[in-house]
């Protein structure tokens, strides 16, 4: 098996990350300062804007599920977690990875399918994982990350210590049976897991009102799991709620469910820039954009401090883009690397001719 890490780029990351990418990420040691939350939200917003540019320029082939508008949930969550806590994310996870501590350059390289990406270009924008910061994966199977997180959290508890796992999913996931099964398992055994629902009101095009009978928090409450619904546009409220839930989990008091009411400012996926789906009232979009979480948090930080942070974020992301685009594209010959952890090589799609087969006798 070839090791692309030996190309020397995968583990080094972007210069400047220590300032803009990680300060404020995954603190887990007391409430973050307003400027730390602002810094992370600004990083996520500008990261996504750079990523959109790279989608447009063709460097990111898949398109992305932008999390612009939902930065407060990611920043508040990341600030309440430690680096050694585990996260299972979903398809709209760039912000969550950054707030958990992922290096912006390595994440951007992943989106661009480069071997210096967090998952060597094998996960992409849809399935990024970064085990260096505890992000175990982003399952595209909606809602199924919740039982993954529950199993991981159970394993952490069994090992002793006070690590926790969080599962991040959207409102669409709350109608998935396996997610509800995981609520039952987590509550039965008081597993140290925090279920975080980013309710952005739409499962692709389906409004939450047309898809959720009962209530979102009621699903968790039915299993005896404490549940809160919180304004997901305010990172300080998000932080406080996640910190309470994490403290409960660390203390052995079991799972918590948090619904964060938020909104994605862009489409479900960048394909909407061409499909022009009309499932949201422009007035509704405008009303939520007027509650921009980044603007809210900016108002809590002195202008001079903000200017320094903004400049720092720009230079971090400039370096991240350079790092990503300088990364190697994978060698097609390596397409089957990592399929099996054991190193098993699979047969090619075209058989060797009979003459080439050598039979061991």
């Amino acid at each position, binding site marked *: 098996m070839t090791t692309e890490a030996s190309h020397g780029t995968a583990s080094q990351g972007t210069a400047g990350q220590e300032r803009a990418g990680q300060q404020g990420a995954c603190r887990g040691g007391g409430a973050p300062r307003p400027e730390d939350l602002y810094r992370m939200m600004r990083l996520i917003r500008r990261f996504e804007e750079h990523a959109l540019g790279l989608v447009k320029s063709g460097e990111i082939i898949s398109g992305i599920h932008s999390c612009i508008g939902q930065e407060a949930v990611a920043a508040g969550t990341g600030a309440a977690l430690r680096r050694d806590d585990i996260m299972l994310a979903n398809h709209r996870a760039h912000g969550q990875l950054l707030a958990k501590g992922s290096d912006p350059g390595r994440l951007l390289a992943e989106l661009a399918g480069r071997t210096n990406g967090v998952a060597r270009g094998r996960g992409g924008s849809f399935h990024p994982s970064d085990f260096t910061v505890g992000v175990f994966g982003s399952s595209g199977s909606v809602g*199924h990350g919740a039982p993954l997180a529950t199993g991981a959290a159970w394993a952490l508890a069994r090992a002793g210590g006070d690590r926790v796992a969080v599962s991040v999913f959207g409102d669409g996931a709350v109608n998935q049976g396996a997610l509800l099964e995981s609520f039952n398992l987590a509550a039965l055994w008081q597993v140290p897991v925090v279920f975080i629902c980013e309710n952005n009101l739409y499962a692709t095009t389906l409004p939450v009102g047309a898809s959720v009978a009962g209530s979102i928090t009621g699903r968790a409450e039915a299993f005896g799991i404490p549940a809160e619904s919180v304004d997901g546009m305010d990172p300080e409220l998000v932080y406080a709620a996640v910190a309470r839930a994490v403290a409960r989990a660390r203390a052995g008091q079991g799972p918590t469910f948090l619904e964060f009411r938020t909104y994605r400012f862009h489409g479900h996926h960048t394909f909407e820039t061409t499909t022009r789906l009309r499932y949201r009232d422009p007035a509704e979009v405008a009303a939520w954009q007027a509650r921009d979480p980044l603007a809210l948090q900016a108002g809590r930080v002195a202008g001079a401090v903000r200017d320094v942070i903004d400049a720092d974020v720009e230079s971090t992301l400039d370096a991240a883009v350079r790092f990503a685009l300088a990364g190697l594209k994978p060698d097609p010959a390596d397409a089957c690397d990592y399929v099996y952890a054991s190193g098993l090589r699979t047969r090619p799609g075209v058989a*060797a001719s009979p003459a080439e087969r050598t039979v061991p006798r």
Partner: protein
Amino acid sequence: MSKLSYTRALNLALGAEMDRDPAVFVIGEDVRHALTNVTAGMFDRFGPERIMEMPLSEQGFTNFATGAAMAGLRPVVEYQIPFLLMLVFEQIANQANKFSLMSGGQTQVPVTYLLPSAGWRLGWGAQHSDEPYSLFAHYGVKTVVPATPSDAFGLLTSAIRDDDPVVVFAPIGSLTMREDLAPGDLVPVPLGSGRIHREGHDVTVVAIGHLVYDALAVAGQLEDQVSIEVFDPRTLYPFDWDGLAASLAKTGRLVVIDDSNRTCGLAAEILATAAEEMPLLAPPRRITRPDGAILGFAPELDLALQPSRQQLADLVLEVVKSA
């Protein structure tokens, strides 16, 4: 040690691995009371955290196992009924088996999925009688079907130690089998290695799972007319193609008996690979369940769809004659 039963072999392998590695634990339904006998005596021995009773939430607990595996444990998940593996097919094929690649090699998912009741039990009807191993092989999930008690021990041991997801199908038709074994016969069997149960030089019969016993019976019954080599792949994915090629280099003739449905079943892949890559003196043949087989409840309807010894004997003679 003498007359070891198949189920007891699974029980011994599991117990030995749990003794050897504290990361190994069992989850499943009715495992506390060892409904399938695989976990007999283990609840008292290992306690509720390592013999973990699950509610009827197969999709949830299959992913629970994946999460625990990525966090460093080695779960063994037991399912009682073949269709449950179809219920959790997405969780195994699309999630557990893809995290190694999707993470670029950052993680591994060493989960063993154990089905100690694969396939057919007379009169259990349409929904309890499937043999879905070809689905997992098609998707590249490591898949083993031990035919004998010693292979059950050896392959379950290797499955648990493997760093990837592995599905272990224990055919119902094998569960009553016992084997005379000497101490030292119970050893790990590497994944991907077949076994010749009987040597022969006229025709290779590839038999899977409990059908190995039918192949051996037919080989004995026809021994005055034809010399049959009985090849048991033991692992369906990755398949021991070199082992098959070596056998066919000797016999040049191939008949496969496989408890899958005919279309896209494992026998189809074996025939195709042999035809493409190996020297054959006669067109290869197969015995499977019919296309899209759904077993009726009445024994007459059920048996009518099972691969039979008569079908095997007929095809073996035909293949030998046609060369």
